[in-house]
């Protein structure tokens, strides 16, 4: 089953959204006092529906024309609203309140409503709305809490009509009833929504966000009485008659519970003297600010309100005592909402949490149908007329663009308007039946008309590409035809004989992006066996990267590579060892982290090594010694241009080869006894166990003396290193180390420039990285540490590290990847380890998260991590069964499970310990 997934999953299959237009049984209570006050009667209801249909047909015929244009306002706008004739727009802000006529080519200022000598705060508008039935009627919400209505029909210059000063705080939103001329709704920071009848001087009804918040049932008790509550309340509720019949609503439940709780406190807890010392809090303490109110377009009596605490409430205008329904829509304030113009019960909400959500309110519970993640908090949301799934959003901060989303494609906006230079504060579709004109006002003091056809479409700029690995290492790649065609020479994929192609999809004619779906698909098959990455895993697991002397690391890694049949890599390691671990350098080489200077000489040696090894195969280092001993090596060097290293490197090195080697010959004489000692011991005999043992102690002597304190410190840091060093040393392949002793020491004395090899090594690393063996590059980088790091620029290093870590994690080699992160010196990489290091623990009794950092669970007041065997708190390694979550001290559990397969806690679970 090759996993040739549908690569162009750009267009999600359009579900024919079985959205039942379930007619909602409105509990029309025509006798209701309120309803009659508002004139919201059944007859009014049917009346208005009739009116609405008439309007629709009347406006549907007209054709709008215009172009993308903008005009400068004198001040930042806070909100805009369009007149129903789609020819005028009102802009309101802190210091602007004007009506503009939208003409073919430009906006023309028609009326300035901000009159008077010293404009008061009443004119500092937070919101403005134009009545959709009466083109003379406007309402504004002022930042000081005043709601003002304006009648354009007034003959005087001041068009102000009525002033409602009932709100105590800023009014965030005003909204006219879609069909009734005189019903106005406002939502304010003070937590109240008020419904005004414009024929009266004050509000008709007040809706409080507070009263209903209890519906959420948040109980706050300062001290530990929480566990009692659920039990208690369940009992009470069960007994309560109306609950039993399912007639009780949330808020009523709340009341019952509240009373019960208080009674219980008084009658039971108080006499016992166990009254909680802290005060009891109801979450209803303060009212939450209302951010938006919107009348439903389809349901005559319904409106939605959104709150700063993330809630959305649904109200029946006739019932101000409690809301019909409430749910938490967002995390953080919900800034805006909009009812779908066509689909009854679709509500879009946008919040500070950068989400736009579409809810279906027709079902029993509000159901989240779509969710669009934007890049900034959502300030406004408006459904696009005539396009069922489109909505426009703008943001409150940071992001200045207006986006039009197809809610079914939540990742890429369908269109984007980028005209504004500061945050967009108000958007409005120009005409309720024309999807192509969008108006917007912004903090940058401009008013824009956007034409949909001028919008930039991010999708067009994106190159739809898909890339996927199959189960067997096949690689499939699909891209737009045009893109692939550009680079020719690639045969299009004709289909796989082995596997059926199963991603045929039906194209949806409604989808605007269907055209893009024509694409080219290429599949790269791997040769059988070639794709096996076994070597990678093995290498990663077995490589030693730190904690031992460099020479041993190199040897070890070389051995690993050789065993896995990667001879070239093995050679490289051996060479590195030769380069950096010559005896003269041993003092420095042994500190795997410090001291880069003088760390590189003996180039000739490396080359000769190459050649030698290439010719006779592996493991013949001993012979090398001799070749060095007699100064014939220069001939060897000269034709050593063969192998690993690219040509230019060789050219570079060859130039310096010969003289260097002569130097080698020269200094031999004046060498210390170490050198003299070596050839004597090595050449005649070849006993493989005796010699090394001699060689290593020698080396240790050298090592220990010169760098003194530094070395000691290093050892102190990693005690086990020094402890095991001797053992490791004798295990490592000896002969090669031996050869080193003799020759490169001499080289050291020859004073080759210390950075002599760095170029080579650098190129070697690049070579491996280019080849795709980033593992090698990183391993060498880590092992050599300071010696090469400075030669490779930070970014490249970081790049290698991240790629390698990525690879390791794909193979689930978490330990190795962690080690690599730890050993890396690049800051960006090593901080990967610092991120998300929190371990979340749940209490094993109550299964709730442990919030405090101690061992005692806050809720059940018991120690969470008890050993099931010895019943003490485990403070070290804790092992637990993932099946039953019992566990304890590692030792205890191991011991227990040796004797029994059941859980020691006696829960009957058959625990597995592996």
């Amino acid at each position, binding site marked *: 089953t090759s996993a040739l997934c549908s690569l162009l999953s750009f267009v999600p299959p359009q579900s024919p959204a079985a959205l039942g237009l379930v007619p909602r049984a409105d509990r029309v209570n025509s006798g209701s006092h309120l309803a009659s006050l508002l004139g919201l009667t059944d007859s009014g209801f049917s009346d208005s529906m009739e009116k609405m249909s008439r309007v629709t047909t009347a406006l549907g015929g007209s054709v709008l024309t215009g172009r993308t244009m903008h005009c400068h306002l004198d001040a930042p706008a806070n909100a805009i609203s369009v007149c129903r004739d789609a020819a005028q727009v009102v802009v309101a802000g802190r210091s602007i309140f004007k009506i503009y006529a939208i003409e073919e080519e430009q906006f023309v200022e028609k009326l300035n409503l901000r009159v008077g000598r010293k404009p008061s705060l009443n004119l500092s508008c937070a919101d403005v709305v134009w009545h959709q039935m009466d083109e003379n009627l406007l309402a504004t919400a002022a930042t000081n*809490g005043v709601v003002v209505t304006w009648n354009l029909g007034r003959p005087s210059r001041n068009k102000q009509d009525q002033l409602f000063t009932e709100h*105590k705080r800023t009014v965030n939103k005003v909204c006219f009833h879609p069909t009734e001329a005189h019903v106005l709704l406002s939502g304010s920071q003070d937590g109240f929504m008020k419904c005004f009848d414009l024929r009266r001087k004050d509000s008709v009804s007040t809706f409080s966000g507070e009263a209903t918040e209890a519906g959420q049932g948040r109980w706050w008790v300062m001290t530990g009485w929480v566990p009692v509550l659920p039990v208690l309340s369940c009992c009470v509720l069960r007994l309560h008659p109306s609950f039993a019949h399912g007639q009780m609503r949330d808020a009523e439940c709340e009341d019952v519970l509240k009373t019960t709780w208080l009674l219980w406190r008084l009658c039971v807890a108080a006499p016992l003297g166990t009254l909680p010392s*802290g005060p009891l809090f109801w979450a209803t303490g303060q009212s939450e600010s209302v951010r938006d109110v919107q009348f439903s377009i389809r349901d005559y009596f319904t409106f939605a309100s959104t709150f700063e605490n993330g809630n959305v409430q649904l109200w029946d205008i006739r019932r101000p005592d409690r809301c019909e329904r409430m749910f938490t829509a967002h995390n*953080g304030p919900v800034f805006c909402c909009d009812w779908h113009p066509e689909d009854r019960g679709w509500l879009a909400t946008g919040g500070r949490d950068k989400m736009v959500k579409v809810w279906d309110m027709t079902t029993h519970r509000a159901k989240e149908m779509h969710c669009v993640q934007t890049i900034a908090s959502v300030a406004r949301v408006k459904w696009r007329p005539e396009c069922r799934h489109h909505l426009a959003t703008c943001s*409150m901060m940071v992001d200045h663009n207006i986006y039009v989303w197809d809610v079914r494609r939540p990742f890429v906006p369908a269109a984007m308007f980028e005209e504004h230079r500061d945050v967009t504060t108000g958007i409005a579709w120009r005409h309720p039946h024309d999807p192509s004109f969008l108006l917007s006002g912004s903090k940058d003091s401009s008013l824009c008309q956007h034409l949909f056809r001028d919008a930039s479409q991010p999708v067009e700029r994106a190159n739809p590409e898909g890339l996927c690995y199959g189960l067997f290492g096949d690689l499939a790649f699909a891209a737009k035809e045009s893109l692939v065609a550009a680079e020719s020479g690639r045969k299009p994929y004709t289909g796989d004989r082995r596997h059926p192609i199963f991603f045929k999809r039906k194209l949806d004619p409604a989808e605007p992006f269907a055209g893009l779906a024509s694409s080219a698909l290429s599949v790269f098959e791997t040769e059988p066996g070639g794709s096996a990455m076994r070597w990678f895993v093995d290498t990663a697991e077995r490589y030693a990267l730190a904690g031992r002397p460099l020479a041993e690391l190199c040897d070890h890694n070389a051995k690993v590579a050789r065993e896995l049949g990667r001879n070239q890599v093995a050679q490289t390691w051996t060479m590195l060892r030769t380069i950096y671990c010559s005896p003269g350098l041993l003092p420095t080489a042994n500190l795997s982290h410090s001291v880069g200077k003088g760390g590189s000489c003996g180039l000739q040696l490396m080359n000769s090594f190459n050649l030698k090894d290439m010719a006779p195969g592996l493991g013949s280092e001993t012979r090398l010694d001799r070749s060095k001993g007699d100064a014939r090596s220069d001939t060897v060097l000269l034709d050593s241009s063969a192998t690993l290293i690219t040509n230019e490197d060789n050219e570079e090195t060859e130039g310096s080869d010969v003289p260097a080697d002569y130097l080698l010959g020269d200094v031999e004489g004046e060498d210390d006894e170490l050198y003299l000692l070596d050839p004597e011991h090595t050449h005649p005999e070849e006993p493989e166990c005796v010699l090394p043992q001699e060689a290593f102690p020698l080396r240790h002597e050298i090592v220990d003396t010169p760098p003194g304190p530094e070395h000691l410190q290093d050892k102190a840091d990693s005690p086990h290193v020094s402890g095991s060093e001797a053992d490791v040393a004798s295990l490592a392949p000896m002969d090669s180390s031996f050869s080193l002793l003799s020759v490169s020491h001499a080289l050291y004395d020859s004073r080759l420039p210390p950075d002599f090899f760095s170029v080579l090594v650098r190129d070697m690393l690049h070579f491996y990285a280019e080849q795709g063996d980033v593992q090698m590059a990183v391993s060498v980088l880590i092992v050599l540490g300071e010696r090469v790091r400075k030669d490779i620029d930070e970014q490249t290093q970081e790049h290698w590290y991240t790629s390698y870590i990525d690879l390791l994690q794909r193979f689930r080699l978490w330990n190795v990847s962690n080690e690599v992160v730890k050993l890396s010196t690049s800051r960006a990489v090593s901080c990967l380890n610092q991120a998300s290091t929190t371990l979340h623990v749940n209490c094993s009794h109550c299964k709730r998260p442990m919030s405090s950092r101690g061992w005692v669970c806050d809720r059940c007041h018991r120690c969470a991590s008890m050993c099931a065997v010895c019943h003490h708190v485990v*403070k070290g390694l804790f092992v637990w069964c993932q099946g039953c979550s019992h566990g304890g001290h590692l030792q205890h559990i191991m011991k227990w499970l040796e004797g029994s397969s059941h859980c020691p806690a006696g829960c009957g679970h058959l625990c597995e310990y592996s």
Partner: protein
Amino acid sequence: MRLATAASEAYTTPLAVSELLGCKQCAAGRDQDEVPGRGAERAAGYPGGWAPRRAILQVGSEDAQMHALFADSFAALGRLDNITLVMVFHPQYLESFLKTQHYLLQMDGPLPLHYRHYIGIMAAARHQCSYLVNLHVNDFLHVGGDPKWLNGLENAPQKLQNLGELNKVLAHRPWLITKEHIEVSNEGLLKAEEHSWSLAELVHAVVLLTHYHSLASFTFGCGISPEIHCDGGHTFRPPSVSNYCICDITNGNHSVDEMQVNSAENVSVSDSFFEVEALMEKMRQLQECRDEEEASQEEMASRFEIEKRESMFVFSSDDEEVTPARDVSRHFEDTSYGYKDFSRHGMHVPTFRVQDYCWEDHGYSLVNRLYPDVGQLIDEKFHIAYNLTYNTMAMHKDVDTSMLRRAIWNYIHCMFGIRYDDYDYGEINQLLDRSFKVYIKTVVCTPEKVTKRMYDSFWRQFKHSEKVHVNLLLIEARMQAELLYALRAITRYMT
């Protein structure tokens, strides 16, 4: 492993608490020779600063929730500092406070750990708050900071030096922050220079700065005394008072201070009783007749201006001789740059309209965008501080204090030139009397000049926990004000 030790130690917390408290007794003795002005804050020794020891001890004898909080705090910090011991009057707030502070200092964030503590030191040093400086010097060294930096800002990396200016302005005249400040402290923001700040780092730094500015206010406002165990080795030791515990030497001194407190209470009991009554009466009146006399718009606007202007001149008179302590001041270049200067010259504070840039809508989004999760934490903290109430006032119960709290909050914002369109600034004058205003003003603007006399002279009848509550309001309002200015500048820089 580390967790295990921390947590096991947490069990010993009660002991640690009582130890600390016991130790504080010695310092408490010093209270008797209270000096006005600088140094006084150290003279009041016990963790609770101005609050008498009895009140704190009572709290210290704690219930389960406080215990848990202490354990948390101890586990996170490895100590239980005096600030925590005072804030525990309000456990709900303390929890959020500790969570935020822990996140800012120890969790994922754009700045390296030692930078964070250094920035804390810089900020606290702005107000010569040796208490916080000491604490963070220890932490700074603990996380591997370079001791050389402590010799002054000029020894710190260029990057931190660039922050100096912002720190200065933010602490004393946040309304002057413009996007130029952001640009300066960010020079070469886009270039990958070594000492340039990324926006995320900058926001982290700004949050830290404001956090520590306001925490310094709290320290002085409540008279938090130095940690007993802060040894003087590498700290900024205050010139006159040793940090060492001297309870062995001065045993038996504590009765004095209790007497003193008692007498102080007795004297003021009669008139302060009327104080509370009067305040409550005013609140009631305001509540009732709000709708009746509707002030005109001009009136409202001028009320704000008056309040703002007056707040400039609200200062107690006995704080002139103060000179900053040398030790601490080496962290900032010119000590002359303070709030006082500016008020002398009667500079005009521009009006910042909260409706145009507020924390909930704008500030939060920006912070959360650049420094994820912190916006949420701070938001929560603001919320708790603003809404915290026990519905009590001195001896009265079931009082709706929201009006009073809002007056305090808005008064502080008013001092910073931040205006709420929907607030009648006349209320402030009705509710806050002069001595209270002096206290607020001093705590918020020049905390180093707070004296015990100021602390005692406002709201005499109120409980200490209530005074701490006031302090919480003060510091959160201050933090928000500073944040608003800084974040607005960053926003402008970004657009």
